């Protein structure tokens, strides 16, 4: 089956076509992503109304291009999937409404995909990872450890109590005047810096739950920086290196606990899977490798273009849901907030007592 996927939950407008074979293998036929970075750079972060305005100007053109690159016409597709949340509601409305229109006109099933679910299932598109696996999802908007047990069967093992990791990187970059998005900038500065110069906290260290907290780290960084302002180039590099090292330590510690919780409840995971833009950070990537090696599982990190927001992951999640018989009506509502655990799966229909949830 071939599914069209639409992604508009944040500041990327994306459309893609993905094929899912009868054997469950995936193939990307086209994958178009238009980033709005320039439009938000002056504001030091994503401005929801600016994002929504940009989505509606270009989405239909991107879909047309995705269809053309895949060499397909609408009657040849089997379903239309859109990210229906969670995310910035103005953008979600544009993507979901467009998907509904495509589905109605072509008499194809609509699949309302949870954006986080799409990140969670990407490793099955790229590497065919079998269930159950442990997902570390870290981006500008999310920081979660999730037990992925099946399509529509997700258990949250850990979550951030405040800022997302990507958000902490962005705020650090903003504080130090490094521009937006901040992740790559901070990482680059950190390569020239001394990670031991500033003593920063490792919030939540050794706690028995697998939750994160980043806001204290961000505040500690600001206090250290204010002490020595105005900042030299070396100061900035050292601050970035110290900050990144603290994040690496936090991720290693929290994920170690998360993986332990996973094993206790569900046995050994088939893999540790990373997703979200933060996975592109090389220092964090190294820490994940080390951790996976230590616990004797393999690490799967999809290529960067499939870790950050894209349409292929939405199309793939749509195909997985469609294959499981899960479709949605044209009256489905877009959702700004939509926790992964509230995503419906096949078992929810037959089993009134789904697996225990935390």
């Amino acid at each position, binding site marked *: 089956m071939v599914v069209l996927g639409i992604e508009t939950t944040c500041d990327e407008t994306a459309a893609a076509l993905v094929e899912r074979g009868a054997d469950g293998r995936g193939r990307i036929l086209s994958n178009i992503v238009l980033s709005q970075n320039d439009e938000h750079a*002056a*504001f*030091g*972060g994503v*401005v929801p*109304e*600016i994002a*929504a*305005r940009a989505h*509606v*100007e270009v*989405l*239909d053109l991107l*879909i*047309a291009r995705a269809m053309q690159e895949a060499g397909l016409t*609408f009657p040849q597709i089997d379903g239309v999937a859109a990210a229906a949340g969670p995310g910035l*509601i*103005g953008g979600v*409305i*544009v*993507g*979901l*409404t*467009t*998907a*509904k*229109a*495509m589905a*109605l*006109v*072509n008499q194809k099933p609509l699949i309302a995909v949870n954006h986080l679910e799409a990140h969670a299932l990407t490793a099955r598109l790229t590497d065919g990872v079998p269930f159950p696996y442990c997902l570390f999802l870290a981006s500008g908007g999310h920081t979660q450890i999730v037990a992925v047990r099946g399509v529509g069967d997700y258990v949250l093992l850990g979550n951030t109590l405040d800022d997302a990791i990507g958000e902490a990187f962005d*705020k650090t970059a*903003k*504080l*130090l*005047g490094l521009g937006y998005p901040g992740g790559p900038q901070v990482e680059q500065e950190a390569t020239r810096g001394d990670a031991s110069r500033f003593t920063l906290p490792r919030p939540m260290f050794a706690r028995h739950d697998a939750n994160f907290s980043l806001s204290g780290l961000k505040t500690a960084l600001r206090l250290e*920086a*204010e002490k020595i*302002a*105005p*900042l*030299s*180039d070396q*100061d*900035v590099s050292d601050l970035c290196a110290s900050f990144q090292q603290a994040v690496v330590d936090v991720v290693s510690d929290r994920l170690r606990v998360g993986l332990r919780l996973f094993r206790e409840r569900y046995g050994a995971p088939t893999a540790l899977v990373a997703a979200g833009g933060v996975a592109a950070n090389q220092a964090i990537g190294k820490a994940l490798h080390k951790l996976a090696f230590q616990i004797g599982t393999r690490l799967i990190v999809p290529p960067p273009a499939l870790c950050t927001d894209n349409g292929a992951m939405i199309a793939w999640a749509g195909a997985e849901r469609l294959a499981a018989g899960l479709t949605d*009506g*044209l*009256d*489905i*509502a*877009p959702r700004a907030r939509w926790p992964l655990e509230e995503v419906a799966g096949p078992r929810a229909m037959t089993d009134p007592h789904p697996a225990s949830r935390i």
Partner: protein
Amino acid sequence: MRVLAIDTALEACSAAVLDTEQAAILASESHIMVRGHAEALMPLIASVMAQASLRFSELDRIAVTVGPGSFTGLRVGIAAARGIGLAAAKPVVGLTTLTALAAPYIAADDSLPIAAVIDARHSHVYLQLFGTGGRTLIPPRIVPLREAVHAAAAASARLVGSGACMIAQNWSNQEPPQLVDERRAPDIDWVARVGAAADENQSAPKPLYLRAPDAHPQSAAQLPRR
């Protein structure tokens, strides 16, 4: 020409199908709605197409209101119209809510001016002023209430739209306005008629916000560099 018309820019969720050859509205539905357009619109479109017994491939164009109005609302309509246009390979035309509000009155009597006014909050209105023959004297813009009163009164204009009463209450002429129709959304049948007449090359289905996004560059948090 067969036209599917869509309006979700103001306080209604509406769709209609017009056939100009039969000079008939084949189907038309409108629901008063402040929010919830994103959920309601597509089933509504399916319903009017079924009532009109038409397939999307049998349409000649899609017409949609592009604002001014609720930012979110007008994007629902435009996203739907452009999505249908792409999927059915049909052209999409955009028209302003102000034109659609004024159209029935211009059609009834085009010797009298009419001001379409939509409440834009904070003592501002979206205004378009039409003179004799339906010519635009003031193109769509956002103006302080006072300015809109002045312009409408100077032209002795009829008033239509959610801001009509606000203008009438502050009227500065001795003669009261000849007509005050405080309707909250355009008649969808007129969206279809104006859409049928619109020039495809001059009516891109792009949002008309008339207001910049509420955002300010942030630099205050940044620490000084040496």
